[in-house]
């Protein structure tokens, strides 16, 4: 008996609810997950400095950060669990057909997450019960586990964009090579881009909280030190992220040209394609954009005369929604360069005066950089996911062919909106209470 045969595609009137629920769960989890990947490194830097001549302020910082990490990690772990349920609840045909192709990275991710969860328990509870050096070392598996789990879970998404490692004949998968699926062509750029984004979200996010503290208490050593460590991590990685982002766009030009065409609102294939900055693509044309002649051809192929594939090369039914993809990309790039400028501002000030910029404007910009990094990361995911539409597995399976036959999906979706609202409110409340309860150093005499 061929089990795939019984998984027929269905007409799902509430496809929108399945998509919205998946988008909500992913978008929520991914923010917290970023802190699980990047934040442990900050905690370890603070603890290392506190043990090696950094002094009391680093000790206070390390304990404070570890406490916040503990809360965020718990929320991240439970909000990630629902995603593994939703893969089957919402997309059983995807899983029935391709589970054995894209499953392996998830299984290995599970192992990596195990290591992370175990050692975060050891790290948080072993603080006063393990010798200092041993304790510091127990933090390393948390960092490695976090990065590894991000790497493996993003390879699964990369596979959705560049599905390889199988043969499909009449809807039946054969010749499966799961290692080839993990090492699909999109893996290097996508995983690097996401892991850097996670570190940037952690760095700028934590820095923003300390910038907030500095605005209220400019002399606070705790906030100043915390800000400098966290902001530096984000700022150092920003130029690297821009280089990787450029590589990602070049990758799209040859491997997912329609996604790039949607990003740029390029309706017609053309040589010497212009780069559109800003602008609103509607009704098959780009309006109000600042266009740099030959810019897109140059960026995508390093050749001002290169042919860039336009949306006209595929039927209308195979095109992604151009407007949101284009706008999300513009937002991501704009914030990326804004963060680069902010980092340069600090570097300039440090080079001139060995101090961070004193102006109120810098502090306000640094506060905005935290949410900004989150928005840029979410916008990047919108580009990746919406740019792949209408395919769930690029050019292999459409989203509507992957969905469950179950009825009543909107009920689940609306229920989850309530759950996520409550979870958000609870997380914010507890973070605020926790920080308020921890002693904040006063201004030095």
């Amino acid at each position, binding site marked *: 008996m061929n*089990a795939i045969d019984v998984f027929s595609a269905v007409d799902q009137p509430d496809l929108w609810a399945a998509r919205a629920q998946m988008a909500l769960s992913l978008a929520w989890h991914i923010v917290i997950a970023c802190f699980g990947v990047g934040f442990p490194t900050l905690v370890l830097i603070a603890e290392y400095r506190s043990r090696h001549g950094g002094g009391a302020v680093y000790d206070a910082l390390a304990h404070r950060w570890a406490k916040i990490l503990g809360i965020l990690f718990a929320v991240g772990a439970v909000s990630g669990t629902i995603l593994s349920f*939703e893969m089957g609840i919402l997309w059983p045909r995807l899983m*029935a057909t391709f589970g054995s192709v894209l499953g*392996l990275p998830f299984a290995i991710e599970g192992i990596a997450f195990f290591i992370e969860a175990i050692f975060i328990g050891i790290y948080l509870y072993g603080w006063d*019960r393990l010798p200092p050096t041993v304790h510091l070392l127990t933090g390393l598996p948390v960092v490695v586990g976090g990065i590894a789990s991000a790497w493996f879970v993003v390879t699964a998404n990369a596979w959705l964009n560049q599905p390889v490692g199988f043969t499909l004949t009449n809807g039946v998968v054969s010749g499966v090579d799961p290692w080839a699926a993990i090492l699909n062509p999109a893996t290097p750029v996508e995983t690097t881009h996401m892991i850097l984004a996670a570190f940037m979200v952690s760095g700028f996010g934590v820095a923003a909280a300390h910038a907030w503290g500095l605005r209220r208490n400019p002399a606070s050593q705790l906030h100043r030190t915390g800000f400098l460590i966290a902001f530096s991590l984000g700022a150092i990685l920003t130029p690297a992220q821009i280089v990787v982002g450029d590589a990602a766009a070049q990758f799209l030009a040859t491997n997912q040209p329609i996604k790039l065409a949607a990003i740029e609102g390029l309706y017609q294939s053309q040589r010497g394609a212009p780069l559109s900055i800003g602008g609103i693509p509607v009704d098959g044309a780009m309006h109000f954009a600042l266009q740099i002649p030959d810019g897109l051809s140059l960026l995508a192929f390093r050749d001002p005369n290169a042919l860039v594939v336009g949306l006209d090369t595929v039927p209308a039914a195979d095109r992604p929604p151009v407007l949101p993809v284009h706008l999300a990309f513009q937002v991501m790039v704009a914030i990326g360069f804004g963060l680069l400028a902010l980092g340069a501002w600090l570097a300039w000030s440090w080079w001139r005066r060995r101090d961070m910029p004193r102006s109120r404007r810098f502090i306000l910009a640094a506060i905005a950089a935290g949410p900004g990094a989150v928005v840029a990361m979410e916008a990047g995911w919108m580009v990746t996911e919406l740019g792949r539409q209408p395919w769930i597995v690029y050019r292999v399976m459409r989203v509507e062919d992957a969905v*469950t*036959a179950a009825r009543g999906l909107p009920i689940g979706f609306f*229920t989850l909106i309530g759950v996520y609202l409550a*979870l958000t409110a609870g*997380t914010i409340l507890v973070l605020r209470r926790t920080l308020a309860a921890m002693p904040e150093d006063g201004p030095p005499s």
Partner: protein
Amino acid sequence: MTTADAILFLTWAGLTAYALFGGADFGAGFWDLTAGRRQGAAIRDLIEDTIGPVWEANHVWLIFAIVVVWTAFPVVFAAVASTLYIPLTLVAIGIILRGSGFAFRKSVADPDLRRRFGMIFGLSSIVTPFFLGAIAGGVASGRVPPGNAAGDPIGSWLNPTSVLGGVLAVGLCAFLAAVYLTSDARRTGDAALVEAFRGRALASGLTVGTGALLGIVVIHADAPTLFAGLTAGALPLVVLSAVTGIASLALLARRRFALARGTAGLAVGAVLWGWAVAQYPYLLVGSLTIDQAAGPPATLTALLISLLVGAVLVVPSMVALFVLAQRSRA
């Protein structure tokens, strides 16, 4: 033993770990909710101390089992998830509320907030294992056919075997937690606390034992295939569960708490393995065997290698965590 059998064996070992460790964490939530006024604070403090360092790691067994099933037996995962999507959604919500409720309570000092987060933690610690048990009952009684949401969206989890599975799951979690916590309470040196958990362990053990006896009638009437398996190949495991269950009560009565931990774990583990043996070689009772549902050989081999490498990394780490968590309260 085929590769698929080996993977299923490891998955079941993972699920057993989830039942023994994650299950005890759920049970702790049950006792937290019902701690009452008189000894409430002491009981809740012990629970918070005991499961605080380990609950996240204990929870990963479930995620692990799910991703292994969808990799090795994708059609089974898809069939179960799409038919049983209502209880699965409730389990997912229960997991979110329970984990965050516990972590939030641990992080705040305000008594009013602590009480509210504690309520969320306790209630979702009962709801979640109930629906997990109901899902198990739906699968074990053969109510999940292969296909895209092909089973009854309500009847697949609202039926005699599922209700039995749900109630038994809540009871077994409570029993395990009470036995473990009795042993943990001894380290606090608080004799009244030890007696409080000993009483709870005895009461919940007797209740679950009686429930399991009555359950035989339910399974006989509602799930004849499962009943046949339980009384044939799985009979030794059923007997083992009964014997170790009774032994746990005797050991609790004689205050041999460390040994009672072992027998209680065996009693619960034997239930899970009894179910597995009773259903073998079917994954979806009556329609899909392990061999029919197994993914391609290349995936199974890669998965098995990954699991073995993972075990080498995970198991010693887990032991280190438990040793540290026990030592911290010494």
